[in-house]
């Protein structure tokens, strides 16, 4: 595996993404919603409740909302790859550029890694940028209100450091498999959303009803994601092979 070869593919895909307004809007808008809009909603909601709560209850409610917000940073790496990955692979199918690409002295693994990194890097990049904005807004507010910073905490560190990258890898791999079966970018995005939807629903549901600490939940979900990542890695590797692409992909 020659990483520099993969990087050539990655940088080409990133150049293509830069020219695609839909991808650029998605890369800006989704982290903006989670990083900016969400904490403002939280702050507004907390402000409305403030008069009915004791200081301890108020801090507890603020902590809960901050943690709830943190979990949304798993949604970005789940959603964005289905948008970008569709352009990366289905886009190549539509432009019929896979054959000349496969004719180059590059291995299947190098191409797959290059394409995966092209989705993974910007996705995680904007996830972290969104997280920094989220933490900043929440901390400015909490410092003014309570005189201390709410975030970052261990929960957020596990979510951003472990869970989000694992979720991103899962979404990227799922997208490779989906892209082999469809010829339409929208269809790939829709299918991608459907595949990752159970994960989203589970996370939102779990955060609402869970009786176990968030950190434990995050670690449990991360372990599950890691197993799923390994399984999907082999499946996507088997799907992304020259012979398969040229003879079986639709």
């Amino acid at each position, binding site marked *: 595996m020659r990483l520099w070869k993969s990087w050539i593919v990655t940088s080409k895909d990133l150049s293509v993404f830069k020219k695609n307004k839909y991808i650029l809007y998605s890369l800006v808008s989704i982290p903006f919603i989670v990083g900016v809009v969400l904490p403002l909603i939280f702050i507004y909601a907390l402000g409305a409740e403030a008069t009915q709560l004791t200081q301890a209850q108020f801090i507890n409610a603020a902590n809960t909302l901050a943690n709830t917000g943190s979990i949304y940073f798993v949604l970005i790496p789940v959603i964005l790859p289905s948008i970008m990955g569709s352009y990366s692979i289905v886009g190549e199918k539509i*432009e019929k550029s896979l*054959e000349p690409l496969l004719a*180059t002295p590059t291995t299947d693994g190098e191409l797959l890694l290059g394409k995966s990194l092209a989705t993974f890097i910007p996705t995680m990049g904007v996830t972290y940028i969104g997280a920094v904005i989220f933490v900043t807004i929440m901390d400015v507010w909490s410092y003014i209100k309570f005189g201390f910073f709410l975030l970052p905490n261990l929960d957020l560190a596990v979510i951003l450091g472990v869970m989000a990258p694992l979720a991103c890898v899962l979404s990227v791999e799922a997208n490779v498999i989906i892209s082999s079966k469809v010829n339409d970018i929208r269809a790939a995005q829709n299918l991608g959303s459907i595949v990752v939807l159970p994960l989203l629903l589970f996370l939102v549901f779990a955060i609402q009803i869970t009786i176990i600490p968030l950190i434990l939940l995050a670690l449990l979900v991360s372990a599950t994601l890691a197993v799923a990542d390994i399984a999907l890695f082999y499946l996507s590797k088997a799907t992304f092979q020259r012979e398969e692409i*040229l003879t079986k992909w639709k």
Partner: protein
Amino acid sequence: MIDTENLTRKFGSLTAVENVTLHVDEGEVFGFLGPNGAGKTTTIRMLCCLIGKTGGQASIGDYTIDKEEDCLKIRKMVGLLPENVGLYDSLSAYRNLDFYGKLYEVPEAKRRENIEHLLRLLGIWERKDDAVGMFSKGTKQKIAIARALIHDPQVLFLDEPTANLDPEASKTVRDFVLDLKKEKRTIFLNTHNLDEAERLCDRIAILKTRLIAVDSPKNLERSLYNRKTIVHLENVTSPIIAAVKGLNAVKNLKTSENMLILDMDNPERDNPELVRAIVMAGGNIQYVTELRSTLEDVYLKLIREASAR
């Protein structure tokens, strides 16, 4: 340069290519003719190590197509122009070629030099920074050819290089292939265009799953009928017919209006004697022409025979 022996590819129960044995010399332009679904693209894909074979053997230079380490070397030494240009529309012509130059491991200085040389040669250097999506089909095809040549490949596979192009763009592409021929590159040309094959190729193979014929265009054309000489006369008279029938070189004679149609083994050698005999018999000759089958006649006959089997 290219050798195959009983090369076979099956897709489930469907045999796409069966027992194809051929040899292409270094510097040769080799045409591959056949109807849709004849196995031309499948053969190219096997030779470029894009898909595997199910039988037989094939090699390019010193490398065989069934070893992974050889495949990387084969891909490095061949250039492929697939049926669809497959360029990145949102990227510039330069960026498209640069990307492929990097993947083909062309050093940066050489890459820049090659891109400029090719784009200038094809007359698109001035538009190197324009997005490929803005170009016409013909120009895109030119860029795709430049892409296939970005790493100076020893062997070039061209799959339908002029398909869907207007006559002017087709001519540009054909002229470019002729230039490449002068550079002594080995070119393997898949085409439906018989005229193109005749003009460009040193030898032609006709394929319909199996290889039906391989020869030079001229020999293929001669293979269909005996060579015929047609003599247009002012009048065909009995003394003329008697004089012509008396010649040993004439194998068969037919008359049609004021024409004599003659089967000759060696027209170059025997026609002067034929002309003398007709003149001596009082004939007034208007034209002497050769009736030869075209590549199209040969192609259609061979393909029909293969279909009937």
